[in-house]
């Protein structure tokens, strides 16, 4: 091994944002607007914020337009509660649904290129689980920019952050949070190009690193969505929440699982089995192809299990069909242009003429780092960590509970990004520049030393592929006690193996191998929390489905908190589900009880 690992230099700022996607940069823009001159440093794993995972979101952002004579925020609030299978927090749902439209207008006013109606207003389309009159019929609530809404949002918040002079540091990861007397004072980061560690000291730190589903064989997530920040929180002794809730999007393109937006079904596409039967009618008679994602993903697997699926020779994978052939040419060319081009390029089918092969793809983590409704990170079910905030997919406030509705994620990024930004502005009023952190040895130096000195025979690809197959088979859409116990056992072995993988080079500069092994260890750690949470939750709710406990159980009306400061040393906690709408006993409060969930 070459040079000793050291922290090269220290930077100071007011706000450190770890992760420069939609949520992180909406927070940055809010801080820039409200408190001009704030020194903000935003970190991204990719080369530019514009390349963040947010940019791959397609279908839309839900918000109730106050000028819509049919729709009301309470319908959206109810849909989100019902969609979550009664496990989201009502204070958060209400807050987010109430300010959704303001945020759509904010984006539009700051230059986002929303698709338009003939009258020049922002166009809206239906989406799964979004309905009028408490579940009666579909709502037109998803504001969109063709089928690149995430890109539109990302470009807008990125440009706004540039305007406010946010300092971006790209191609880097935060490897460790820094604390002093229980207060978060920044992070250690590792820069990929130079292979250098830097300390960044900040009055406030916002975690906004996005999702984590790269541990699944089939995943719509970007290559870098490896749950790094969840591991930072765990290492710091903080809990993570509801990680067992992993959303499988029903329509990933067969093979790697590239997302084929729910907007396709919003525009009228129909799922069909091998007999070309529109099978969703049997599973969700009212909502059909626009039922929530958890239901549809299970229905697809059910069709495949009962012999009504198909098999794709090239990709060696089972699938069903998504039928877009009956949609008007105008829709293909303008409203779903990107996805149609993906089908043509990656699958070799023309959606105007051919049936498209799709299967569920790991898509979204509903859980994450627990926060209150202001984006303040929680140390347990009550307390908060001073100086530490989180928003977006990495955080669980929780808007989604155990199942998220389509278009509610972009809504969350933007609303909770703003709310968190506002809270940070408040926090900065009394905050002072932090003193240097206590000089304890950094965990990341031990980790990197292990990787750089590893001499085993294990191969990176072997451990990565074992993990991804294991999680898909044993901790996927359907779970049992047996599959989860097996998974936990294998994960322990994989964790051990991952520390013995020898590197191709021990240079620190742009060392892809080193970077990926660090990520792989994070994925294994997060996988362990997912499996442990899934084993403990002996019920089925939202995206978490236990074949041995197929019903929802009131005994589990809480959020799962998991602490795991050391690998597989797990302690569980509980956080109550906020029922404030129900408890306020206002209009329609009875619908916000633990209701039966049918579509």
């Amino acid at each position, binding site marked *: 091994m070459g040079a000793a690992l050291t922290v090269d230099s220290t930077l100071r700022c007011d706000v450190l944002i770890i992760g420069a996607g939609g949520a992180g940069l909406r927070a940055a823009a809010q801080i820039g607007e409200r408190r001009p001159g704030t020194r903000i440093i935003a970190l991204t794993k990719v080369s*530019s914020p514009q390349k963040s995972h947010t940019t791959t979101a397609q279908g839309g952002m839900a918000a109730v337009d106050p*000028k819509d004579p049919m729709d009301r925020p309470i319908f959206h609030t109810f849909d989100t509660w019902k969609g979550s299978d009664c496990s989201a927090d009502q204070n958060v749902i209400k807050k987010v649904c109430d300010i959704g439209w303001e945020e759509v207008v904010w984006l539009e006013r700051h230059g986002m290129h929303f698709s338009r109606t003939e009258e020049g207003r922002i166009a809206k389309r239906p989406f799964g689980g979004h309905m009028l009159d408490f579940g009666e019929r579909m709502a037109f609530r998803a504001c969109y920019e063709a089928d690149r809404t995430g890109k539109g949002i990302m470009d807008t918040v990125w440009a706004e952050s540039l305007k406010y002079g946010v300092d971006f540091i790209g191609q880097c990861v935060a490897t460790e949070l820094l604390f002093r007397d229980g207060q978060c004072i920044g992070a250690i980061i590792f820069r990929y190009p130079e292979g250098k560690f830097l300390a960044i000291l900040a009055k406030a730190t916002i975690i906004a690193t996005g999702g984590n589903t790269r541990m699944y064989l089939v995943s719509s997530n970007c290559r870098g969505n490896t749950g790094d920040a969840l591991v930072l929180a765990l290492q710091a002794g903080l809990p993570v929440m509801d990680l067992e809730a992993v959303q499988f999007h029903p329509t990933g393109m067969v093979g790697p699982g590239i997302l084929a937006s729910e907007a396709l079904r919003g525009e009228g596409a129909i799922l069909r089995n091998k007999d070309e039967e529109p099978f969703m009618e049997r599973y969700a008679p009212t909502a059909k192809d626009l039922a929530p994602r958890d239901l549809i993903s299970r229905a697809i697997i059910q069709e495949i299990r009962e012999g009504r699926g198909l098999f794709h020779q090239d990709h060696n994978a089972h699938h069903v069909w998504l039928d877009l052939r009956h949609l008007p040419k105008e829709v293909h060319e303008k409203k779903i242009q990107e996805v149609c081009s993906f089908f043509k390029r990656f699958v070799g089918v023309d959606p105007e003429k051919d049936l498209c092969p799709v299967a569920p793809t790991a898509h979204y983590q509903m859980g994450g780092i627990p926060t209150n409704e202001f984006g303040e990170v929680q140390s347990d079910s009550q307390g908060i960590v001073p100086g530490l905030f989180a928003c977006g997919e990495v955080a669980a406030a929780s808007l989604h509970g155990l199942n998220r509705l389509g278009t509610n994620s972009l809504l969350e990024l933007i609303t909770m990004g703003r709310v968190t930004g506002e809270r940070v502005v408040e926090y900065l009023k009394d905050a002072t520049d932090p003193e240097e952190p206590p000089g304890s040895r950094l965990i990341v130096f031990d980790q990197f030393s292990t990787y750089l000195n590893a001499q085993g025979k294990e*191969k990176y690809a072997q451990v990565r592929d074992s993990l991804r197959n294991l999680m898909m088979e044993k901790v996927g859409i359907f779970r049992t006690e047996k599959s989860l116990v097996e998974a936990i056992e294998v994960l322990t072995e994989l964790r051990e193996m991952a520390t013995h993988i020898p590197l191709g080079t021990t*240079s620190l500069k742009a060392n892809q191998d080193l970077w990926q092994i660090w990520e792989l260890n994070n994925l294994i750690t997060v996988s362990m929390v997912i499996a442990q949470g899934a084993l403990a939750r002996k019920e089925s709710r939202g995206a978490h489905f236990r074949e041995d406990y197929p019903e929802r159980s009131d005994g589990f009306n809480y959020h799962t908190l998991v602490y795991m400061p050391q690998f597989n040393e797990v302690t569980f906690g509980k956080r109550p589900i906020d029922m404030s709408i129900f408890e306020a006993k206002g209009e329609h409060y009875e619908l916000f009880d633990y209701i039966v969930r049918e579509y």
Partner: protein
Amino acid sequence: MSTSYTITLDINRYDPDTKLSWVQTYRVEASAILRFVDVLRKINDEQDPTLAWSSSCEHAQCGSCGVIVNGKPLLACELLVKDGVGQFKTHTFKLKPLTIAPVLRDLVVDLEKAYDRVHKVRPWLIKPASPHPDGDEYRISPKTLETYSEATRCINCFCCAAACISTHHHFLGPNASMANMVRLMDPREMARGERMDILYREDGVYRCHTAKACSFVCPKDIDVSHFLALGKEGRF
């Protein structure tokens, strides 16, 4: 089972520690439906873990994996092996890093530096139009939006900049210039004078030689040169 090809990849390597450059040849048995990013991963998995390359979304929506294959800048995630063999009529592929920023290692270039050009055109709304009297969104007709919405699809992969014959000679480059055009055509942008200064400045649109390589290589099939031509004509 899927068809497979035996392909040869001659890849430009660069080691930032020794500053040495060389070309390394890999022979790969690759299924026809693999993307070039999958082929590079296969090389890492089976032959050489040190080969560095870049990607993120791997479905042509982020623009992180731009690379030059047999002279053509393209996204490595978008090129399937069978299409590579079909398009280039060969089983041998020469892979080089994009030429628009310093190489960090092998095929990885410092896109952060390349982005400086996009930052120069100030891609936000510099001076937004007054809000609609009703307080909600500004009205834009679909017809107006359609005149520039293609340009908003740009993902800044810099393939066009790599193909452009003028990029290396004090030209902001096609993608950055197009980002400025988007705001010139956006009815919400009131800072027209400042936008035109950016358009016609020393490194602005008149550096473009109208070779149209940008349109030819764009992975998103955007007619980039059309937007630059509108800029030259002053039609916005």
